[in-house]
């Protein structure tokens, strides 16, 4: 707790820089990342992150110092070229986008490594610190540099705020944008520029490899929680901020721990949690929903069976054992058991001395399913001219899907028929 207080009361001035630096970088790349994500260009950030390295080295070689402004300009130029290269390869050759992306990424990075090692070996005293671009060093975000990065971040945020409508349009439907006369090319240019800028400043904190995560992961996580673009962007920004804070805090508590990888670790955990547990879109939620539907179908099938048995015997009040039931329809024992118990809880079935009996509510429900089954069979044979011996399986599925509204329409359309195609009586209330 003490460290917690110590951290958030900024007892060390450096913490303030590192914390605000991390948050600012994480937030601005998360916001720009939302658009690259939606444009399905998520990996562009990865390429640019690798491609800025030769630019940084070249600008150091040319100017001989580590003035962050020069480094940013150098990084910006080669980052841009890498995108142009991808574009050129895709347009002018048969190579596909993934190949062009990987190619541009690895070659630019190779050149960067070559230059970096060349600088290191040439023993230039001022070179120390260039490596921090490789793995990132959030702790390096101090003083004057910090102001430069902060102003770039703020400029980024303002640009996105002003051009929100335009970026949405080119992300959703470029052709329409061009058709109504929007400067689509220019807007793409601006968006790419913002991406490159976000990378150039973010790379300081997390390094070459992990920069891609700062752009992609918050957007991907946010997408699972909402269908509204504004909400998505705000969520992505919050996720970015949380991970930036967490990363800075962890490396403060355990100084041997690197800030950048921890930022990425935290944002990845947020993302994985979202993928699995987010309501509606989450993998777990969808699996649960599938299970619920499966259970529902099982229960309806059981009630249907009880109704059919009652129909055959002309008596709906007989108690039946599990074996008798399985004789009628080969349910798996475990499934049947759980289905029966659930139906008992809902009051559709009763159980006496291991004999199961249908209640009148259960009977109504079972009758409806049987009715729907037979109506649908009749519908298929009448309207789709499907042979009567081919309609059963389809009806087995559809009977669970039909809504009361469709039910009424079906009845009306077929004019409340008496018999189904197999001459079985269609039961009404």
């Amino acid at each position, binding site marked *: 707790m003490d460290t917690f207080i110590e951290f958030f009361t900024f007892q060390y001035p450096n913490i303030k820089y590192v914390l605000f630096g991390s948050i600012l970088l994480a937030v601005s790349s998360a916001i720009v990342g939302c658009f690259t994500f939606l444009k399905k260009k*998520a990996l562009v950030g990865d390429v640019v992150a690798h491609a800025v390295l030769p630019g940084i080295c070249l600008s150091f070689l040319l100017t001989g110092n580590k003035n962050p402004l020069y480094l940013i300009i150098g990084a910006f130029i080669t980052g841009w070229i890498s995108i142009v290269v991808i574009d050129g390869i895709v347009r002018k050759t*048969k190579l596909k986008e993934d190949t062009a992306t*990987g190619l541009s990424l*690895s070659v630019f*990075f190779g050149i960067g490594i070559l230059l*970096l090692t060349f600088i290191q070996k040439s023993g230039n005293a001022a070179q120390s610190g260039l490596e921090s671009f490789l793995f990132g060093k959030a702790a390096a975000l101090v003083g004057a540099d910090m102001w430069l990065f902060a102003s770039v971040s703020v400029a980024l945020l303002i640009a996105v705020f002003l051009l929100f409508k335009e970026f949405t349009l080119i992300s959703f439907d470029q052709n329409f944008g061009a058709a109504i006369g929007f400067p689509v090319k220019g807007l793409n240019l601006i968006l790419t520029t913002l991406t490159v800028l976000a990378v150039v400043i973010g790379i300081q904190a997390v390094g070459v490899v992990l920069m891609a*995560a700062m752009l992609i992961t918050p957007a991907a996580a946010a997408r699972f929680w909402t269908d509204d673009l504004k909400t998505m962007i705000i969520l992505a920004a919050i996720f970015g901020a949380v991970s930036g804070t967490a990363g800075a805090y962890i490396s403060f508590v355990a100084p041997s721990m690197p800030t950048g990888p921890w930022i990425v*670790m935290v944002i990845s955990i947020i993302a994985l949690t979202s993928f699995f547990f987010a309501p509606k879109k989450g993998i777990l939620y969808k699996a649960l929903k599938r299970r619920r539907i499966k259970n529902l179908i099982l229960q309806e099938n059981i009630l249907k069976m009880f109704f059919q048995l009652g129909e055959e015997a002309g008596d709906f009040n007989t108690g039946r054992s599990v074996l008798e039931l399985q004789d009628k329809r080969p349910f798996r024992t475990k499934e049947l058991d759980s289905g029966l118990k659930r139906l008992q809880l809902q009051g559709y079935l009763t159980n006496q001395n291991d004999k199961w009996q249908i209640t009148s509510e259960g009977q109504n429900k079972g009758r409806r399913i049987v009715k729907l089954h037979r109506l649908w069979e009749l519908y298929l044979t009448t309207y789709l001219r499907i042979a009567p011996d081919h309609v059963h399986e389809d009806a087995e599925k559809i009977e669970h899907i039909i809504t009361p509204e469709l039910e009424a329409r079906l009845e009306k359309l077929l004019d409340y028929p008496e018999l189904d195609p197999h001459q079985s009586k269609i039961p009404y209330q």
Partner: protein
Amino acid sequence: MNDLIIIATGSLVAISCGLLGCFLILRKMAMVGDAISHAVLPGIVIAFYISGERDSIVMLIGAGLIGILTTFLIEFLHQKGKLQSDASIGVTFTWLFALGVILISYYGRNVDIDQDCVLHGEIAYVPIDLWITEGGTNLGPRVLYVMSFVTLAIIVFIKIGYRGLFFTTFDASYAAAIGISTVLWHYLLMGFVSLATVASFESVGAILVVAFLIVPPASAYLLTNKLPKMLMLSVVFGVLSATGGYYLAKSLDGSIAGAMATVSGLLFALTFFYTRLKANPVTSSSPVLQES
């Protein structure tokens, strides 16, 4: 002698990666290869920590499994989670790579893995890292043995599995229709990509492996449409990159792996301009078009 050993090692890396890379780029999975090469890092660190040595069989197998796991995770998020594929790749590999870097920091001195080594390897140390038997006999550079073994395994794999790989790459639905398991070949290929990545890790680093996986096959593909020829050409481009890269690095006194990637890019650029030039010997607008 040392020159030769380094060039030989680089060439072996280039050959094994180039052969696999041909299938990767034809399957539009170049970036999955990129992802695997990053994602095996935690596997390497853990295997390293457990076995305490490099190049153990444990490590090769362990990292191979992590590579397959990565592929699986990417597919899982894409298909079950409905996450678009580029984002699914990006999220997966950055997460695993972050885990790897954190593990390196955590194990600290216990694991002899240098962060720089992760990025660009240290092929220059290959000649001095010797395999000395318990009897004290010097058998030569250890990495050379590992790389030869891996290269051989990959060549055998492609030789035996050529038909399966070819069919599932060219037309996956047709392959499935005639009963070839696309899933099996997919994961086999990814397993071998992981193997190649791990084996090359020490010499060229986890990231520059990508250059060897993608660039020589891409150059080869520009020159031919036939798969056997493409495989041959990418081997040629790979070996040329390794050799040229070594001498470039020597003259600049820089990273050998970085220089090899640079040369492979240079060769690609040359191929690119060569094919453009061949396609368009004359450039003038044509009046013939108006004939209709």
